């Protein structure tokens, strides 16, 4: 029989210690964690960015990633969206009893690889095991800290009329890749999640222009929801052009089949930037030069009238409102 996570793995006793040493400390080897003290003690100075997030994605493995990779990149990206240089992460695992140890180890390894790619360290963590049915296989909670370089002032309320709206690549890849694996909905696609760390992309963009006004990663709720948030926070309107927004043909096709609009489908490796017009081309160049922003595009601009509203020029040249996502995405029935 294959090894499985038992309630005893979360009891604080021998099995728990074995799990921590054999799985976590081994994978995340760094001096902070290796001490196994109650807290990681780190020297840090500068303007600190501090974020937290929880990951409950189902299924926990999906094309192009898994819950571990998602947790690391998601947290790194939240830090990067305030212009911070991400440094340290904490990870807490809430495991449903019965999870095969193999799968946990796969995820732990994927966390380590992701941390390496993003250049951050996992310095503290925790494990709890709950009864079958009290969690869905595995949940991960994270926290992250990073340092914001001097002269950088990025906030959702900084957009100004005339600013350009930049998008780092195709939308909807993550949401459709995860949905394609969901029980009862399974369809075959070559599409993979776009799950990626965006801190190096942001660093290169800031190199090109430290005057970037807003950054946001359009995760749940998709591009439409992020743009609405920015328009409301900055009390401006945003006008985008449908034809300028990069969308993969596979995503378009899956959205048609399921009755979704790609504007509302989740991304995990994309960002929206709002940039003063005179810096837009420089920033776009920097994005396209980065591995994570090759198909970046200027998709629209910020306007003063109708504060809080997002509008889109459709491919027919007409205009329509782009509202926030309401409720969950549901499949159509006819």
């Amino acid at each position, binding site marked *: 029989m294959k090894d499985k996570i038992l309630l005893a793995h979360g009891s604080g006793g021998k099995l728990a210690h074995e799990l921590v040493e054999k799985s976590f400390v081994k994978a995340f080897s760094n001096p902070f964690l290796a001490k196994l003290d109650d807290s990681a003690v780190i020297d840090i100075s500068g303007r600190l960015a501090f974020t937290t997030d929880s990951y409950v994605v189902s299924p926990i493995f999906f094309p192009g990633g898994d819950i571990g990779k998602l947790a690391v990149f998601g947290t790194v990206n939240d830090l990067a969206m305030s212009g911070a240089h991400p440094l340290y992460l904490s990870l807490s695992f809430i495991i449903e009893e019965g999870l095969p140890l193999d799968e946990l180890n796969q995820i732990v390894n994927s966390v380590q690889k992701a941390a390496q790619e993003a250049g951050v360290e996992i310095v503290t963590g925790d494990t709890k095991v709950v009864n079958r049915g009290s969690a869905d296989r595995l949940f991960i909670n994270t926290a992250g800290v990073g340092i914001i370089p001097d002269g950088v002032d990025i906030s959702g309320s900084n957009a100004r009329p005339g600013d350009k709206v930049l998008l780092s690549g195709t939308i909807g890849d993550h949401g459709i890749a995860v949905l394609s694996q969901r029980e009862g909905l399974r369809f075959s696609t070559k599409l993979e999640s776009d799950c990626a760390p965006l801190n190096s992309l942001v660093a290169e963009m800031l190199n090109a222009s430290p005057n970037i006004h807003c950054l946001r990663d359009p995760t749940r709720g998709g591009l439409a929801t992020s743009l609405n948030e920015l328009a409301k926070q900055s009390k401006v309107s945003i006008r985008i052009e449908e*034809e300028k927004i990069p969308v993969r043909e596979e995503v*378009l096709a899956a959205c048609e089949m399921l009755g979704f609009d790609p504007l509302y489908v989740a991304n995990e490796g994309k960002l929206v930037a709002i940039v003063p017009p005179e810096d837009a081309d420089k920033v776009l160049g920097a994005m396209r030069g980065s591995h994570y922003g090759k198909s970046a595009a200027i998709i629209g601009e910020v306007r003063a009238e109708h504060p809080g509203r997002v509008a889109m020029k459709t491919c*027919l040249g007409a205009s*329509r*409102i782009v509202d926030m996502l*309401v409720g969950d995405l549901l*499949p159509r029935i*006819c």
Partner: protein
Amino acid sequence: MKFVSEFRRSELAEGLISQIHRKSRTPARFMEFCGGHTVTIFRYGIRQVLPRTLDMVSGPGCPICVTANADLDKAIALSQIPEVIIATFGDMLKVPGSRSSLQEVKADGADVHTVYSTMDALRMAEENPTKSVVFLGIGFETTAPTIAASILQAEEKGIGNYYVLSMHKLCPPVLRAILDSGEVKLHGLICPGHVSAIIGSYPWEFIARDYGIPCVVSGFEPLDILQCVDMLVDQIENGESRVEIAYRRGVHPEGNQQALKLMEQVFEPCPTQWRGIGEVPDSGLKLRKKYQHFDAELAFDIDPGPAYEPVGCICGDILRGVKTPADCQLFGKACTPEHPVGPCMVSSEGSCSAYYLYGGGFEG
């Protein structure tokens, strides 16, 4: 062929739009029957790009919207029976019935599951042999064949705990009812694409023949709709009324014979209630005698109580094409997608939802 992006190309759209502007001389009102078409029309702003000669109204082609409250109340009553699992398409959850919604009773503990296909519901019945699974059979001719197939499979496998609450609706009879009422003067009909993929284009012939109204079956991409409008304008300017297909990649004149056979085998037409329209003869589907043991209404003793319509809601008038969401006092105020009063605001294919989400008539 990629089947999506080719049908959204702006340079082709531009050509079609200017062609329509050039040809259209006679003022005309077109109805798009199908909610899917309504969504495309608003999502791409098609009304904004058409000439002033052309007026568009939305029809009753949203299966969720036309479901009568009395039928919703039956579904909710069934959910209250112990050991009954309700399996439904997701759009039904939020629709307010007379006193509650499936979403509310689910939160209170009723066993309500969203499924993506009838076969998932059938599997649920197989996996829960001590419970009864009731599938909410909603939809037009598009979904009915798949539900018929699930019943035949249940019969073949001897699955005795699978039931269907048949609330199906048929499209051609309700169009006849709308045209006979004379409330809306129509000069052209955009016929539903998916429904026609099943029933073909022949069942629309009576509209062109008896009422002199040009009919064109359309697909769901913006270029499909523009092509359909262009063909309708041609017929009008030439004084013709015929049934044409602008959706050849999906629809054959004779339809899908296999699907029609399944439907015919399991269901027979019956009178049924449409929200806002009332009872229409032969516009519903009930299980044939041979398959009546799958009929949830016969298998369970339910008393849903009297049905009420929400006060001030004009969904019924909107579904008949007599009024638009802009005429409703509740629209965008008391009734929003987050807090819907009527079904047209809930369903992703409802007119009110399309107006609200995409900003009907919005210029900006």
